[in-house]
């Protein structure tokens, strides 16, 4: 206990260390605040959108009074609202869409539309807690620890210190513990404060905090081992440690990325759209029977009602939209499973690059990772299937349009996500 007190007093005279600790605290505070702002604005935008979306559908309902046209003109907002921990890791929400408006037409033509943010922002990258904890925290650890031994060596006090301390290892241990303990406090306290304000589930915050500590310990071990095993002077030591940071934070992730893209190729995205569009457009010229046979293979319950007598009937129109999706299915499944496989492999390889591992972990705790985006996409597919089931019944059974029946139409809700 006395030694910790001594180290604290010693630290209070080290201006550089105080500077780094203060900087760590201020930067984390800024990052957390920016994250909170962003999440707040996503929520309020979503609220407005939900309202506008409802009133848009109301106008459509007033203008049309047959199932086919209502289905054609009604868009439905689907969304993935930010989780209570999203402020800490905004993750993939920047790049991968978290809101869509879809309608009864072929889904493959709609699901890849992205409501993208300004690419000028995306290219710079986010400033959030996950970025601070995974990319900047190692630098803080390095700055706080690199000179511990070598500065004493340079000042000629090293041997004396080790001799008087009795147990040399113990001395450096206490000194480093005090510094890193304070660093952890500087980085985790803004997170915990914001999490309490956001009402984030405590177990998630504890997981997130432990992951950050684990990452910190990794960099502690790295800094400690390098300075223990070498007799390098402070500048050389610092340069070498920054080199290691570059290796783990920048080069390895980039190499992993390149390897994964080579290992798991994806079908070209635009091919999905092209295939789907050819299938849907060709249907206009195909015999209606061909389309309806392909349709009833998937929906045998409508086999009895699948005769088309007019040049244009809504049920035929929606049937060929559905068949368009069916034709594209192999490609789109390949695309989905490819992205899933890339995501799995990234998660498995991420231990090779601890900063990347931490960012992945935080994003997955905050449901802002690629996996979350993929399950959101799945929820859109489920909802679209429900919409189809609803309208097919109306169209194939030739039910008259009523406002009451329309109230039974499925609405997208959070429940689709889980």
């Amino acid at each position, binding site marked *: 206990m006395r030694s910790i007190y001594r180290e604290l007093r010693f630290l209070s005279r080290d201006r*550089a260390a105080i500077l780094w600790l203060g900087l760590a605290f201020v930067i984390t505070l800024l990052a957390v605040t920016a994250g909170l702002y962003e999440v707040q604005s996503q929520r309020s935008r979503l609220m407005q959108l939900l309202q506008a979306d409802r009133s848009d559908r109301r106008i459509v309902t007033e203008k049309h009074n047959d199932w086919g046209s209502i289905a054609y003109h009604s868009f439905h907002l689907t969304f993935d609202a930010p989780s209570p921990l999203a402020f800490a890791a905004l993750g993939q929400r920047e790049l991968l869409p978290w809101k869509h408006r879809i309608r009864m037409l072929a889904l493959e033509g709609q699901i890849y539309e992205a409501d993208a*943010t300004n690419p000028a922002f995306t290219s710079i990258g986010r400033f959030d807690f996950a970025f601070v904890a995974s990319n900047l925290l190692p630098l803080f650890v390095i700055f706080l620890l690199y000179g511990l031994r070598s*500065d004493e060596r340079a000042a000629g006090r090293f041997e004396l210190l080790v001799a008087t301390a009795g147990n040399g290892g113990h001395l450096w241990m206490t000194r480093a513990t005090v510094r890193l303990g304070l660093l952890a406090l500087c980085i985790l306290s803004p997170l915990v404060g914001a999490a309490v304000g956001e009402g984030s589930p405590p177990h998630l915050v504890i997981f997130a905090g432990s992951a950050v500590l684990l990452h910190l310990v990794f960099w502690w071990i790295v800094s400690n081992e390098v300075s223990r095993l070498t007799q390098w002077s402070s500048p050389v030591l610092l340069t070498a440690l*920054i*080199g290691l940071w570059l290796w783990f*934070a920048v080069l390895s992730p980039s190499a992993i990325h390149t390897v994964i893209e080579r290992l798991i190729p994806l079908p070209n995205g635009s091919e999905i759209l092209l295939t789907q569009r050819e299938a849907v457009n060709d249907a206009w010229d195909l015999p209606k029977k061909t389309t309806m046979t392909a349709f009833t293979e998937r929906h045998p319950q409508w086999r009895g009602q699948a005769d088309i007598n007019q040049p244009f009937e809504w049920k035929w129109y929606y049937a060929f939209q559905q068949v368009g999706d069916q034709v594209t299915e192999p490609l789109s499944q390949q695309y989905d499973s490819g992205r899933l496989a890339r*995501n799995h492999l990234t998660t498995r390889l991420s231990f090779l690059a601890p900063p990347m591992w931490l960012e992945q972990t935080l994003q997955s705790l905050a449901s802002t990772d690629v996996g979350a985006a993929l399950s959101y996409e799945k929820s859109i597919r489920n909802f679209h299937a429900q919409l189809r089931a609803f309208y097919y019944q109306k169209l194939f059974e030739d039910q008259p349009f009523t406002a009451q029946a329309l109230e039974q139409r499925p609405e997208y809700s959070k429940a689709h996500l889980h």
Partner: protein
Amino acid sequence: MMNPLRIAADEWRLWYRSRLAMVGLAAVIGLLAGTATITALRVHTESKDRTEGQVQADEHFLTQPDRHPHRMIHYGHYVFRTPAPLAIFDPGIDALTGDAIFLEGHRQNSATFASAQASTNLGGFGALTPALMYQLFVPLLLIAFGHSVILRERELGTLPTLLAQGLSTSTLVAGKMLALVGLITLLLLPALLVLFFALANGASAIVSLTVVLSYALYLLVWAAIIMLASLTSRHRSWALGVLLGIWFSWTLLIPRLGATITRLRIPTAGKIEMDLLMQEDIRRAGDGHNATDPAFVNIRTELLAQHNVERVEDLPVNIRGVVAEASEAALTTIMNRYANTRMRLEVSQAKAVTSFGWLSPPLALSAASQTLAGTDLATHHRFLREAEKLRLDFVQGLNRIHAQQLRYQDDIDRSRNTEAEKRTRVSAESWSLLKKFSFSRAQANDRISVAFRYWMMLIAWVAGIAVACGLATRRLAP
């Protein structure tokens, strides 16, 4: 008498003898070569895919069978943006924007399938490119080499000897600076190689040269700040700490903070919000599929009066086609208004972020580099605009065919009468109205003059630090 060149040569010899320095240098040059190769291969594949995609899309459109012209409007067309030749050096925002657009009637689709969307989650920095290597990591090497150029003489006690031999402080500083400039020149060689390669692939020579000069200017900012730190610090650790702190705030902190501040200061509505707002306006403009929509009553009365007939059946033109053309024009005006608002806002956001270049030279350089390479936001917007021009062109061409070559009576009967439906099919030869799409980037001169604005930031940095170095040199004492 010692001249600056001899001082520089001494410094180079010292670096050459240090194994650590040589390992670092080899590592950075190896990385530059590696990222350059990977980026070049990727861009090459993309370029091939998209050129093939465009050929295929053209062929699909032209080989469609005889059919109703409005069907072709909905069949639509794809256009692809092939990567800029300089994208092998700086792909800029290309991976984020999507490179294909589906063009169809009544809608302006966004570019889809940005390659970054399907890629793995990378974390902090994204894919490494030669440009990024120069912007972020070459400066680190310069810091490692250069922070001690003056300090070492001081710490080893050789500074007083040098000065006592009649060496002026300014010659000393000039020599050390020359050493750093030599290092920069060496480090720029891989960039030159990449740019030669781009040149062979059709990049403009003057633009490529400007790219190299921009990076040279940028690294000069670093050399100057390193010199300043070495001149004014008492200890090597202190100089190194300060320089790393500067690196850290210039490359990591200020750009991201700037982007965050800009987001809060200039918010934009997303595409869905815009679409919903636009929908209101579009409803007022009427539905062009329905020639009896109240919004088009005027067209009808005017046409009837102009041809002096009572019934639309007696018109020499098909009113459905006329209405379709008028409504597409009206709709496009509305859509362009929203699209332009959105683009203007995006541009002002990008400008606001770049103005943080006054605080962070890497931000200024990255803006200059993307502008020169033709991989910036303005180029993306240019692509969107050119695609829209092509869209309107073929859609309206088809609408005119609809108005002039189809009989109104057949047109309204075609859903019930198979014979009438056959008569509404237009010969496939008409599809050749589609123009070839080849995306052209802004002229070299325009790009250079835009990039010059960002040069100003870098020049201001060099000038400011040079003055500070001058003052520090005068006060340099053993």
